[in-house]
C-alpha cells in the first residue's frame, strides 16, 4: 500500500500589522534545535505571556511536530503491507495425454527432407516415433534426422530434434500448447537411395 502525504505550508510572512504591533523580544536567545528534534520543537520552556506573533510561532511549531510524526509513521510503511495479487487462480496448465495418433508415411530423398503438419487442440504431451525405415538399398537401421517444430514457409522449422534409427520407443516427446506443429524427417548424410519411412505422431 502506498502512502501519499500532502502538506500545505502557509509560508507567507505575518501581516504588517503584526510586525508593527508585536515585535518579539526574547529575554534569552532560543536554543538551536536539530531537525530530528521534532517533538522538542513544540515545547515551551518557560511559561510566559506571548505576543500574537509568538502565539503564531508556537501554533506553527505544534502543527509541524504533529505533521512530522504522522508523516514519519506513514510514509515508509510499504514493505510491511504488500498488496495481495488480485488473481489467485492457478497458473499451471493441465497437461493432456495424447488422444490422437497420426501416421506420417513418406519418402525422403538423398539429402532431402519431408514434413507433416498436425494440430494440437489442447495443452498436452506430443510423442513422436520413427517407427520404420526401408526401401531399396536402404538398411532398416539407418539413422535419420527427426524433429518437431512449426510450419514456416515451405518447410518445417524444428525446435526439438534427434538423430535416430527406427524403433518402437518414443524418440521425441514434449508438452505443447494448442496450435499447429509439424514433424520433419531428413537425411543426415547416411542415405544412398530414397528411403521410405513411417512416423507415428501421438498428440492431444
Amino acid at each position: 500500500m502506498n502512502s501519499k502525504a500532502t502538506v500545505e505550508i502557509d509560508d507567507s510572512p505575518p501581516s504588517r500589522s503584526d510586525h508593527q504591533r508585536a515585535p518579539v523580544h526574547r529575554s534569552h536567545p532560543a536554543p538551536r534545535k536539530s531537525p530530528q528534534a521534532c517533538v522538542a520543537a513544540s515545547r515551551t520552556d518557560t511559561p510566559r505571556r506571548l505576543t500574537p506573533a509568538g502565539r503564531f510561532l508556537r501554533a506553527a511549531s505544534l502543527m509541524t511536530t504533529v505533521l512530522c510524526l504522522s508523516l514519519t509513521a506513514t510514509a515508509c510503511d510499504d514493505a510491511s503491507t504488500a498488496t495481495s495479487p488480485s488473481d489467485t487462480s492457478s497458473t499451471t496448465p493441465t497437461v493432456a495425454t495424447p488422444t490422437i495418433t497420426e501416421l506420417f508415411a513418406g519418402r525422403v530423398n538423398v539429402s532431402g527432407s519431408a514434413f507433416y503438419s498436425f494440430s494440437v487442440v489442447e495443452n498436452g504431451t506430443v510423442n513422436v516415433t520413427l517407427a520404420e525405415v526401408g526401401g531399396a538399398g536402404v538398411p532398416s537401421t539407418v539413422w535419420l534426422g527427426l524433429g518437431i517444430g512449426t510450419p514456416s514457409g515451405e518447410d518445417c522449422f524444428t525446435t526439438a530434434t534427434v538423430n535416430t534409427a527406427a524403433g518402437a520407443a518414443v524418440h521425441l516427446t514434449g508438452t505443447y500448447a494448442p496450435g499447429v506443429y509439424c514433424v520433419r524427417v531428413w537425411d543426415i548424410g547416411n542415405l544412398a537411395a530414397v528411403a521410405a519411412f513411417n512416423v507415428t505422431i501421438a498428440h492431444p
Partner: protein
Amino acid sequence: MRAGSLVATLALAFVTAACGDDTPTSPSSSSTTTSTSTVTFAGTLSVGGARFYSFTNLESGSVTALLASVAGADTRLPLAVPLEIGIGIPAGTGCATSLTQLVSPGLLSQMTVTLAAGTFCLRVADAGELRVPVSFAVRFTHP
C-alpha cells in the same frame, strides 16, 4: 531560531514522506501499432500440382493476397492463365484450405480474409487450366 527549526522539521517530514511513493508512472499513451509482413511466394507449379506456404499471424487481422505473375516455366513468357489461391491451415503433407478463389494474374488485391492469431498457409494450385508447368509469384500480407 524557531523559523529555522520549523524549516528543518518540514524538510525532514518531506524527506521521510517521499520515500514511500514508489508507484510507477503509467504511460500516457496506450495505443498499439499493428504491423504487417509482406511475403512473396514464388515457385514452379506443375500441371495438376499444388504448392503451399506456411505463415504465422502474430495477432488477428486481415490477410490479403494477389497472384502477381504467371509465366511459362521454360519460356518465361507471361501467361494469363488463372490459378486457384486458397488460405487454410497446414495439415498432413498439405494445406487444408477453408477459402479458395480462382484468380488471374494482376497487381490488385484479389483475396482478403480476416484471420485470428496462429499458423496458417496459402496454397497455390492448378485449377485444371495448365497445359505446361508455370512459374508463379503470389504476394500476400499478414499481421
